[in-house]
């Protein structure tokens, strides 16, 4: 099985400082690190959310994320990058996803991290199911705004 050391799919939480330190390790010529952390909001579509459950497609997820990551490296001069996405049950305020990118100059890191997130949102096979306080469950709908955000990067 192909290994993707810069992609992690895990149920455990992650620590930002630790992950950024790993990202920078062995790269002295870094001037900029941009990190994005996505977190569980307690409100979605106007309803309170108690639990968020993340399902994914093992195998395809890693491949899709690595493809997005490598495309970012092709488009911008980056030193290193990492994508961590959690799966399983999460609760309001929990961390869901980390995208961290390092580069010599800040502009590349900002664009690359934003690009990776926009592509992840529409191309990586994850699905969210919400549980409301009354116990009802519902699958989260894909957002048109996410598709539009992805399309802005079309070259």
């Amino acid at each position, binding site marked *: 099985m192909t290994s993707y050391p810069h992609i992690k799919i895990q149920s455990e939480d992650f620590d930002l400082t630790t992950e950024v330190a790993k990202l920078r390790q062995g790269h002295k010529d870094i001037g900029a690190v941009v990190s994005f952390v*996505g977190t569980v909001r307690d409100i979605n579509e106007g309803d309170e959310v108690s639990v968020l459950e*993340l*399902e*994914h*497609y093992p*195998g*395809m997820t890693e*491949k*899709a994320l690595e493809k997005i990551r490598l495309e970012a490296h092709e488009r911008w001069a980056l030193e290193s990058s990492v994508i961590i*996405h959690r799966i399983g049950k999460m609760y309001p305020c929990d961390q*869901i*996803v980390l995208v961290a990118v390092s580069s010599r100059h800040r502009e590349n890191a900002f664009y690359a991290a934003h690009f990776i*997130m926009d592509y*992840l*949102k*529409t*191309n*990586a*096979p*994850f*699905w*969210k*199911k919400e549980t409301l306080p009354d116990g009802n469950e519902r*699958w*989260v*709908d*894909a*957002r048109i705004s996410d598709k539009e955000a992805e399309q802005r990067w079309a070259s």
Partner: protein
Amino acid sequence: MLNILYFASFREMLGTANEELPATYQTVNCLINELAARGDSWRQALLDNQNLQIAVNHDVASRDTMIKAGDEIAFFPPVTGG
């Protein structure tokens, strides 16, 4: 054989996460037509669904994608991670 996977709302709606079928279909479309004949929920999920997402061997695919024995074909709704 073909390995067929269903994810998220599809898995729940169709009541199955995966199944094996004989590799007697040339394209994804042929497979979909066969599955859609199973009943309403199958037809709605796979045939009448503008938002159907398809992957063959972990890559994004379309109804026209050719398939062969040993392939893994997945059906799922639009993704909502991140």
